[in-house]
């Protein structure tokens, strides 16, 4: 259990000490304050003291409102600048142990990754021992001695599970990630379930958090599942590579690949995968094509060779046609080769520029280094001051009359690195352009040569003896023979490639089977019970809060990530509840989900810290009636602590109406949160 006893904020300004102090009790605490009174600053200060400020969208003091780090406005339109400020937060665990956390927001001499932990209640006893701890630093969550979140984990008696990251490493869940399940922040917290959770490369993070909160047995099986997911990814990669090899192979034979998808699939019939080769404007599979060619060759061999005389007319026509083609191709060759020369020139220019930039970058890094060394031996120029007159010198040797401000050295290094990156991208794309043009050019030249020799042969034939057999004809036969040899070998190689494919297909099938099996026996009896309880709680709360976008019966909790799903009526299609809920109903479902996580955990002995924090839960013009129902529900959580921050539309009437007949502890922010301290 995590209970917040009180919070104290101290802000030293140039006009004296300002601050705030609030105490909280078990059960429902309402923090009421008008808009701009500083209600959210209080919420954020609590989150900050616990080191959870990533839920507000960032790290360190920059996430805090300006009243804690820049200036205090009190009374209206009178400003005092902040010299130093900190938050003191007193929290208690299940055993009744109390610690007080102190974290600075503004302090020129202290880093905000430092937290002081006092072992006890500082408000009751101000001579307590304290210990500095680190947060968000490398090792913030794993350093045995000084990591605050590791300490917090122990304090809460949590044992955070290790989970697999996207990279396949085992790592602990972070406390901040779990916090997103019970702390709902105002600006983005109402936009989705666990909307503010930091990612940290965690797979399916929502599911891991729910499993931890409800203390489910599913964890071990989930690990297997994740491992399976990784081997799936590897296989997908192998498949893609093989697919590429198939494509290259197809290109070599000048055909068209059919039947192979880019993504893994179970292939029952390997014959479906084939390469189509075209002959006489129809496509044929490799073996059919081979049959056709062999057939043609055999029939040609049967008939007698044609003599030159019979072919004169045909040959003349062919020559004209071929010459036309040759002209077109020669023109293309001319065009492309001049483009290519231009591109190559450009590339060598780029490379020269890149070389210069790299040299510049190296020298700049050197300069940066010696600047630091210079500072070590107290060179004034290293601190940008003139050694004789102490005036600022701008870190440059340019004459003073040049009125330009040079970049700082480190900025200059970044600037150059960015330029280099840009140039590298340019070079890469230019190179690939050159390669493809080169290929095209070679191709065209090949065609050119072919046509020329054909024309030559034809002409030669026209001038030769009429009675001789046609050379063109003979050459055609030779050509056929060559083709038969090539495609026989091609067919063999293709079969080998297909064997590799079938191996991958078998592996893929195994993975799918394993996956299916895991799905079946993932959940233990306890887990099923917990999930049922979560679903029941969620549904009953939805109807209590007057959710009306869907009938409650069509709503379920996903087995995969434990988030609410909506089902299409008369259909088995399910999807995220968000897509079919009105804006206000979606807020209701976040209320219901957050509450049911707590309720289920509390009934089934889960790991929920029994703390709920909501900032401005009355979003989207929700009716007061439903809001009252929400407050009523929260007020029944006697063994938990709820901190609810709301403005009640800045009206006393709304407030008394909404809280009518509800038991709660009130913290009223009168006027402003941060006020002068007497």
């Amino acid at each position, binding site marked *: 259990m995590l209970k917040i006893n009180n919070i104290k904020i101290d802000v030293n300004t140039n006009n004296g000490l300002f601050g705030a102090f609030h105490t909280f009790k078990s059960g429902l605490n309402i923090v009421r304050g008008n808009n701009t009174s500083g209600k959210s600053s209080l919420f954020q200060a609590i989150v900050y003291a616990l080191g959870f400020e990533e839920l507000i969208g960032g790290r360190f003091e920059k996430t805090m409102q300006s009243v804690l780090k820049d200036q205090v406005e009190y009374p209206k339109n009178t400003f005092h600048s902040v010299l130093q400020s900190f938050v003191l937060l007193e929290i208690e665990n299940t055993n009744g142990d109390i610690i007080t956390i102190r974290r600075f927001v503004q302090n020129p001499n202290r880093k905000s990754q430092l937290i002081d932990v006092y072992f006890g209640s500082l408000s009751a006893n101000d001579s307590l021992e304290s210990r500095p701890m680190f947060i968000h630093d490398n090792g913030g969550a794993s350093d045995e001695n000084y990591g605050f979140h590791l300490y917090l984990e122990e304090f809460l008696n949590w044992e955070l599970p290790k989970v697999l990251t996207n990279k396949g490493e085992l790592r602990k869940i972070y406390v901040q990630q779990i916090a997103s399940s019970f702390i709902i922040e105002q600006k983005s917290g109402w936009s989705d379930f666990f909307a503010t959770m930091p990612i940290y490369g965690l797979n399916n993070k929502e599911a891991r958090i729910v499993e931890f909160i409800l203390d489910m047995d599913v964890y071990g099986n989930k690990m297997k599942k994740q491992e399976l997911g990784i081997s799936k990814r590897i296989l997908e990669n192998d498949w893609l590579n093989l697919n590429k090899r198939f494509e290259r192979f197809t290109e070599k034979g000048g055909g068209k690949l059919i039947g192979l998808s880019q993504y893994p699939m179970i292939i029952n019939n390997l014959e479906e995968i084939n390469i189509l080769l075209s002959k006489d404007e129809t496509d044929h599979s490799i073996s059919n094509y081979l049959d056709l060619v062999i057939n043609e060759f055999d029939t040609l061999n049967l008939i007698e060779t044609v003599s030159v005389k019979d072919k004169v007319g045909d040959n003349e026509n062919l020559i004209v046609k071929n010459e036309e083609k040759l002209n077109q191709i020669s023109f293309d060759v001319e065009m492309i080769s001049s483009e290519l020369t231009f591109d190559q020139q450009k590339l060598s220019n780029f490379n020269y520029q890149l070389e210069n930039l790299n*040299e*510049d970058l*190296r*020298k*700049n*890094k*050197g*300069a940066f*280094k*010696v*600047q630091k*060394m*210079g500072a*070590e*031996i107290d*060179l*004034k*120029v*290293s601190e940008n001051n*003139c*050694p*004789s007159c102490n005036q600022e*010198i701008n*870190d*440059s*040797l*340019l*004459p003073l009359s040049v009125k*330009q*401000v*040079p*970049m*700082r*050295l480190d*900025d*200059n290094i970044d*600037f*150059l690195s960015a330029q280099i990156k840009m140039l590298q991208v340019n070079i890469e794309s230019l190179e690939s352009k050159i390669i493809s043009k080169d290929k095209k050019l070679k191709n065209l030249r090949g065609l050119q040569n072919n046509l020329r020799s054909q024309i030559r042969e034809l002409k030669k034939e026209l001038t030769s003896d009429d009675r001789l057999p046609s050379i063109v004809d003979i050459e055609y036969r030779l050509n056929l023979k060559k083709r038969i040899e090539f495609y026989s070998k091609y067919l063999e190689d293709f079969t080998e490639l297909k064997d590799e494919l079938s191996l991958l297909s078998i592996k893929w099938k195994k993975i799918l089977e394993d996956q299916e099996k895991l799905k079946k026996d993932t959940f233990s009896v306890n887990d099923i019970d917990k999930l049922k309880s979560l679903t029941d709680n969620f549904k009953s709360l939805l109807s209590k809060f007057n959710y009306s976008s869907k009938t409650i019966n069509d709503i379920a909790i996903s087995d995969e990530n434990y988030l609410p799903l909506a089902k299409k009526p008369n259909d088995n299609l399910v999807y995220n509840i968000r897509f079919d809920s009105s804006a206000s109903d979606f807020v209701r479902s976040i209320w219901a989900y957050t509450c049911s996580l707590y309720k289920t955990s509390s009934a089934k002995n889960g790991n929920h810290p029994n703390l709920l924090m909501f900032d401005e839960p009355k979003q989207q013009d929700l009716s007061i009636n439903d809001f009252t129902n929400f407050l009523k529900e929260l007020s029944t959580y006697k063994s938990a602590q709820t901190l609810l921050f709301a403005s009640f539309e800045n009206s006393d009437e709304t407030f008394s109406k909404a809280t009518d007949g509800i038991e709660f502890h009130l913290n009223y922010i009168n006027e402003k949160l941060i006020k002068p301290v007497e």
Partner: protein
Amino acid sequence: MELYAEKITFSKKPISIPPEYRPSYSIALIVLILKICCQGSKSSLLKLHLINWALKSNENKDSLKKFVLSNYTESSKTWGIEPSLNRALNYSVHEEICSIENGKYILLEKGEIFFSKIVENPEFLNEEIDFLNFLGKRKITDNRIDSIFKKWKSQNA
């Protein structure tokens, strides 16, 4: 004509400048040249300018290398005089890294310390140091520079 904007303001953005214009880099080069290439860590202004010019680019380095390797017969190019080096020298004198004696720059104790710090961990300055080591203390002497200088004078006379 109608103006779309009532007021246009320009703000000056910092610009990128070559590392040779950074005081710390130039001072580091001065220290390296004096220590590695000069007998008694002592040099004339002209020699500092020559070597500093050579370090500016690979082309310059190659040209000086060629001149030395050809046994000083290859027609020597003219080299540039960089005002920024003069400013860096002024800073060095006031930082007490070097001082002027009889018109020559001589390395002081603080400069020696700076030198040892740089050589301990040269990293990005290795190329400069390698080139200076190639030159050494004997290849480019003040006499040599004087004779080149005289040659120019007679050519231009």
